[in-house]
């Protein structure tokens, strides 16, 4: 990779340095490990212990668990080191946004885009939560940058890695291929190069799936199954993102004007940015499960488009008052973003780890362990044999658990983890039956309640 470091523009380094410092100093606000982050850590442990520690969920992509597992295997505290690593990836996302912006637009657009990204509440807050969005965004941004430098093989490989970090990054790859097909028709070779390199990690993953599950597509099929049957907790109306994006940046609608400018200009390189943004935006709006963190993958592109439109408007404004108004609007948008970052942090800092006691019991457990939550496994090196919550709780799942309970040496259970789908009217009864069965057949070594959730540790 032969990219030019932004030595000419120290401002972006200042943005990154400020971002990095504030993020690291604010790490004390994170008191809990999120569910999906715990799964990634657990899978990482599983991989590096050859199945003797952690847990395994088939439908998850492997890159992030591989990184977190490596930290764990190396001897770092997987949670703290994982957070720091993700913060570094976040910083690199800002840098890549700047580099892409500078290459495609100009230094002002690049700088403004990277500044918007750095103070974007969702991006800022979730950088350090240890989810896959930011890491995959970095790989995708690197791929886009290399694509702009016409390094198709490396770009394809990085798109592949981005896809293996978060499956939805396939949309970014599809957007890029779409633009090449549409605007660069003659150059079929480039698509072949890009796709061939993209397929390298993907084929390896498919081969691994074939070996492990005798079905190369199983993780993808399970993802589709899960997305149909879970996630209802976060079902939101179609207007959700339109409204929530104002919290990220009140000027975000100008990014659509940025798309208009790009289309008008007919610059195929800039088209990539617009296409990636639109592919993600349309897709996320169409699916029912909506969470702001999902949009992190599109934010860098959105901010580049937004910045380009602001710079364009600024250039067009001849009246000093108009310019001053625009600068005021930018300043206010940044201030509002900062305010919303604070809101995220206030919410997070109020959280208390409900599993602290269960975690301490988990560390000294042994044998066949069942758990209703991946978070309790974060600190130990034991293996969770059965994930009680997976794929989702139902009457059928209850029967399955009761049948196999005799084999369990330890069961760690929080009744709230076994969430019932609204359509499943028998689910709550099934859950009560399950708990009752466990209490009768197994020895209860810990029992407590937290926010109407019953927490149990049972020994077989």
């Amino acid at each position, binding site marked *: 990779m*032969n990219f030019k470091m932004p030595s000419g523009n120290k401002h972006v380094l200042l943005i990154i340095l400020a971002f990095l410092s504030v993020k690291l100093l604010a790490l*004390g606000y994170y008191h809990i490990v999120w569910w999906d982050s715990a799964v990634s850590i657990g899978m990482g442990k599983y991989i590096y212990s050859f199945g003797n520690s952690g847990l395994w969920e088939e439908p998850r992509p492997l890159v992030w668990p591989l990184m977190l597992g490596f930290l764990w295997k190396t*001897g770092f505290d997987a949670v703290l080191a994982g957070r720091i690593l993700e913060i570094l990836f976040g910083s690199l996302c800002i840098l890549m946004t700047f580099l892409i912006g500078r290459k495609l637009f100009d230094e002002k657009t690049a700088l403004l885009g990277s500044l918007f990204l750095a103070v974007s509440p969702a991006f800022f807050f979730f950088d350090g939560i240890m989810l896959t969005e930011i890491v995959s965004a970095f790989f995708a941004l690197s791929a886009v940058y290399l694509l702009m430098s016409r390094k198709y093989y490396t770009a394809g490989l990085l798109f592949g890695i981005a896809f293996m970090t978060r499956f939805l990054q396939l949309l970014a790859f599809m957007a890029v291929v779409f633009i090449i097909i549409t605007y660069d028709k003659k150059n079929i070779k480039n698509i072949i190069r890009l796709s061939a390199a993209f397929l390298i990690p993907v084929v390896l993953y498919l081969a691994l799936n074939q070996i492990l599950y005798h079905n190369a597509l199983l993780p993808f099929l399970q993802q589709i199954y899960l997305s149909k049957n879970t996630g209802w907790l976060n079902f939101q109306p179609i207007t959700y993102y339109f409204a929530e994006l104002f919290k990220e940046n009140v000027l975000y609608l100008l990014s659509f004007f940025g798309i208009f400018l790009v289309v008008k200009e007919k610059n195929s390189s800039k088209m990539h940015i617009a296409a990636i943004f639109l592919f993600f935006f349309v897709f996320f709006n169409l699916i029912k499960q909506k969470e702001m963190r999902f949009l992190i993958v599109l934010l860098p592109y959105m901010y580049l488009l937004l910045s380009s439109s602001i710079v364009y408007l600024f250039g067009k404004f001849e009246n000093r008052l108009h310019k001053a108004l625009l600068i005021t609007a930018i300043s206010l948008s940044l201030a509002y973003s900062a305010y919303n970052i604070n809101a995220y942090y206030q919410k997070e800092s109020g959280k208390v780890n409900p599993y602290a006691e269960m975690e301490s019991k988990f560390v000294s457990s042994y044998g066949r362990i069942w758990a209703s939550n991946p978070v309790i496994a974060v600190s130990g090196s034991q293996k969770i044999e059965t994930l009680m919550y997976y794929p989702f709780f139902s009457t059928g799942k209850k029967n399955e658990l009761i049948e196999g309970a005799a084999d369990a040496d330890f069961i760690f259970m929080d009744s709230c983890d076994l969430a019932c789908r609204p359509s499943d009217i028998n689910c709550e009864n099934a859950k009560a039956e399950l708990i009752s069965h466990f209490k009768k057949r197994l020895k209860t070594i810990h029992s407590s309640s937290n926010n109407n959730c019953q927490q149990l540790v049972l020994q077989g």
Partner: protein
Amino acid sequence: MMILEKLSYFFTVFFFFIVLSYYFLLFIKKKKPKKNKSFSSLTVIIPAHNEEKYIKEAIDSVIAADFNGSKEIIIVDDGSIDSTAKLASQYTSKNIKLIRTKHSGKSASINRALKIARGELIAIVDADSIIHKDALAEMADELSRDEIVGVCGVVKVKNRKKLLCAWVHVEQLFGSLIRLLFSKINANIVTPGALSMYIKKNLMEVGGFSTKGYSEDVDIAIRLIRNGHKLSFAEKAVTETNMPYDMKGFFRQRKRFARGAINIIKRHLRLNNTIIDMYTLPLLLFSLVQAVIMGSFILYQVFSGYHTYFLSKGIYFNLAAAKFFFEWFSIAGFVRWTISVFAGQTPMNFITIVGIISTFLSYPLIFLAIFKYEKRISLWHLVPVFFMFPFWLLLMLINIYCIPEYFKKEQYNIWKKNE
């Protein structure tokens, strides 16, 4: 055992052997080759790029320096955009020449001067350095020994009273001692740009200075050794160089050094049975690898401790935090840890003992270097020694920052200064 634990074991043991090897070299006595040659002419080359602040005193010191024979001075102004050339032109005479070139790098500048140099000996003096009166004569005397074709001397920092330079000064003194030790077994691969001297014939045999990559002073030493020659160290030849005293200049210089080291590793590391291939170059590689791995790890440890004891409790800074950082960044923490090991509060094992011994062995070497070349110890020496850790950490981080250099195909010798 975790990978990190294994790595720290490896680095600790390796570091122990490195320190031991220094002591071994310190105590071995090697007879120097006899003086069978004599030289009657010397050309001093002063490459300069934007050195208006120092060029005059550099030239003055070279003019004032003794040499038993004819002395020619060639100043090469390498595309300066300040008044370097104007200041240097005031000295031009029959024996002092000024060449003006477009900015093409230090090696290219020296090579340009080499083409017209008339001396049997070639001395390179940096334009931001001054040399002591006897430096040239001492070095020429060293070159009169059989097989010796290149010689370097002691490098001190002239502006050592500037805060940052106090650390660099101690580092340079230690570096000078190490060069002395290495030269005992012809393993010294650094003939510092600040002051070095060569026999012109041998210098030309290897094609002069390489224009590829930074650290041309290391490159030339390696090529001369590979060509079967020996390099020596003149203990009484002293140069004092002006070092960057602000962080910006310091970073720029150290990035160049780090990139230079990577360039050297890429070009010269090979499996061979010569001493530089078995000892010095692997040592250079080790220092880079160690910097990357241990630098990251130590930084993590510092932050992890700060996070555990303070950040996670909502404390950003208080007296306890100040004590925490003081102990991390000074020798006090190491001393406290050692006491806790011997008091049984910290588990004692083979590696902790090896770590303690090697660290305690390394400090006398630093003090020896200070005594040897300064004849006294002052607060300006003690403070950097006491707080050496943050300086090392900074260098490690710069090494990490420069890793992309390893993946670059092209290597350059053009440096920026005072621009």
